[in-house]
């Protein structure tokens, strides 16, 4: 069974640009979660999508947004990139909401220069 996949592996952008990160969940999983791991800040929750709807978001500004497609894949968009957005972005999927085990992808490392 294929795991969670993410693309691209690495992404280099300039301050002020937009970044788009993509995630494909494990087959049969309807929930997708996005987390940010920035140096010194630990793993922080960004967004949760389930059945195409945004269910919850973490304490991040509105320039972090995303969507979930009918096939349950998801993309994360970060607008007006700032230097502090440089981080590893991890996507996870699960069968449903809380109470189900979350499985993580390999991550996208975003560097903003």
């Amino acid at each position: 069974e294929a795991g969670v996949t993410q693309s691209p592996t690495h992404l280099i952008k300039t301050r002020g640009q937009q970044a788009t990160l993509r995630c494909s969940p494990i087959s049969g999983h309807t929930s997708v979660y996005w987390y940010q791991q920035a140096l010194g800040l630990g793993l922080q929750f960004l967004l949760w999508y389930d059945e195409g709807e945004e269910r919850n978001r973490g304490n991040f500004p509105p320039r972090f947004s995303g969507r979930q497609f009918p096939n349950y894949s998801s993309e994360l968009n970060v607008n007006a990139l700032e230097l502090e957005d440089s981080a590893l972005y991890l996507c996870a999927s699960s069968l449903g909401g809380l109470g189900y085990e979350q499985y993580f992808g390999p991550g996208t490392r975003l560097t903003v220069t």
Partner: protein
Amino acid sequence: GIQVEQSPPDLILQEGANSTLRCNFSDSVNNLQWFHQNPWGQLINLFYIPSGTKQNGRLSATTVATERYSLLYISSSQTTDSGVYFCAVGRSRSQGNLIFGKGTKLSVKP
């Protein structure tokens, strides 16, 4: 919000030694997971253990939900066990997300 504390923050072991990692959480949870983050950043699932005891090879975990802690045991450690171990908890079905501790960085020396 719920607080998750992991200890120790750093641990250095000789190959073959045993270790215990601890995770304390400040409120009741309905999801608790242990992960190992490999050098490339991927989180590898170790245990889904909101309560009870589980074992998988040299690793085992116990969660005592009523006392709000979980323990991860690593026996006969190997150099490949090196990395960061995270405990993550989830509290509310309406929120969905996991809340991570700061991790325990384990270094196993040959």
